[in-house]
């Protein structure tokens, strides 16, 4: 499985309140949530994002509330992968559980700039910045988590058991 897209880049400590503000938590509709995704720090994101694009963050991406609406809003906006230096733990869990691919890779998160074209190979964890030609090795998931992802998320993996 691979991803290829244009990069939207954000700083350290992007919290779930800016990914999807609580004023929209009276909805569970992915499309509606996506239309407000990131709007408190980037009004352009929802207008400019295309299917397959890639989000890059710094340390502690997704900190704050446990709202699954946050990875859902990112996924439904068309983002194919989030690369960050580190992820807050509930966001990390939620992303796996709903099937939003995420990768921890500090050098990639430092080097890749907004607007670059990036490809990600989820099987190997290899990230390539096509704009500069730089290649990075992301942290692959442990086998236990890969099985959840392969099954298509947590609920499907439980059903299989």
């Amino acid at each position, binding site marked *: 499985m691979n991803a290829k897209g244009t990069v939207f880049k954000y700083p350290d*400590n992007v*919290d779930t*309140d*800016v990914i999807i*503000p*609580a*004023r929209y*938590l*009276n*909805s*569970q509709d992915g499309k509606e949530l996506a239309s407000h995704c990131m709007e*408190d*720090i980037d009004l352009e994101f929802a207008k400019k994002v295309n299917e397959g694009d890639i989000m890059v963050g710094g*340390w*502690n991406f997704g*900190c*704050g*509330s*446990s*709202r*699954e*609406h946050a*990875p*859902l809003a990112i996924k439904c906006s068309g983002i194919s992968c989030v690369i960050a230096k*580190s992820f*807050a*733990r*509930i966001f990390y*869990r*939620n992303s796996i*559980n*709903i099937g939003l691919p995420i990768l921890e890779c500090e050098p990639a998160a430092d080097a890749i700039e907004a607007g670059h074209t990036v490809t990600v190979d989820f099987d190997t964890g290899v990230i390539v910045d096509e704009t500069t030609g730089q290649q990075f090795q992301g942290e692959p998931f*442990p086998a*236990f988590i890969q099985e959840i992802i392969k099954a298509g*998320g*947590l*609920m*499907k993996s*439980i*059903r299989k058991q």
Partner: protein
Amino acid sequence: MGMTMTQKILAAHAGLTTVKAGQLINADLDIVLGNDITTPVAINEFNKAGFDGVFHKEKIAIVLDHFVPNKDIKSATQSKQCREFANKYDILNFFDVGQMGIEHALLPEKGIVTAGDCVIGADSHTCTYGALGAFSTGVGSTDMAAGMATGKAWFKVPAAIKFELTGKFGPMVSGKDLILHIIGMIGVDGALYRSMEFTGPGVANLTMDDRLCICNMAIEAGAKNGIFPVDEVTRSYMKGRGSRTPVEYAADPDAEYEKTYTIDLSTLVPTVSWPHLPENTHPASEGADIAIDQVVIGSCTNGRLEDMEAAYNILNGKKVAKGVRAIIIPGTMEVYKECILRGWTTAFIDAGCIVSTPTCGPCLGGYMGVLADGERCVSTTNRNFVGRMGHTGSEVYLASPATAAASAITGHITDPRTV
């Protein structure tokens, strides 16, 4: 190698004699919790996966607390969905308007959670129950759905950071000042993926309300959980609450900690987190030039009886400064009633405050105190992110109930020891 308190609880719930940091386990759950925001998403996942029964009707708790009494039609629809699910599966710990409280104030108060439990909640502040000597952590809605169906959850066993507490607080200093101080010291990801284990002779000097507040904000340092040892304070708190049987765990003497911090409680001062991260801590005394528009006293962090008492002790016989809106929200109906019986509600109203029934409302910019552009709020809540309580141009300063009450009187950020 010995185990930490968290590791011992996880091992016991996974049916293992030992676990070590980094190990992936599948653990049995004592309580699975959700609220009116996260439960509807969990219900959809539960239904989509084709489940037609819950693992245990007494071990699921659903609390309507974020947007109730409902603020709009969409919120009402979400509450209705929770209500129908609770009825369908005969969920015993379902709390609606009239019985509800803010979930993390309500569950300990009712004795629904107890020492030794393994708890997940689809709310990040589920880490609160570590105060009782339980392992308790926030998850998302899909984890809640899986937990409701199977009674199990997967965990990566966390490494630990130890906080050795000594001494006792000076006047007007509380658990909130300690946890803000710690987050200021280690940063918002200072305990990422780890458990924060509090220990040392200073623990005996912390009330249960202090401990609940401290564990509540473990997530603001990125932690998986916060946990206190079980002592006389815990036992006397749990006595007579609910029918659960507490199980006491203690860390092994040779348990491994990545780091140990020693904190002398007597050296702490009233502390405030400036916008827009909880780690931006300053002594309250530095806030004299920061004029404020609103004060909120309440939330899962500081909506308990001692918090109300701290506010009462400062506001009684005083007046809220002109131009400041002071909003007081007791965390549960029990706390709300107690404030009335003790005359505190009258004192709050006479001081110029409003007193609401329990709700998370303003903490997350939902309703009951949303901020406009450029407005500043001193709040006893737990997050001061951009736009957290309203407009992205508004500012939230996190503080203790005493500091918030003192600031309400003066109209600027104020060290409560000076009023």
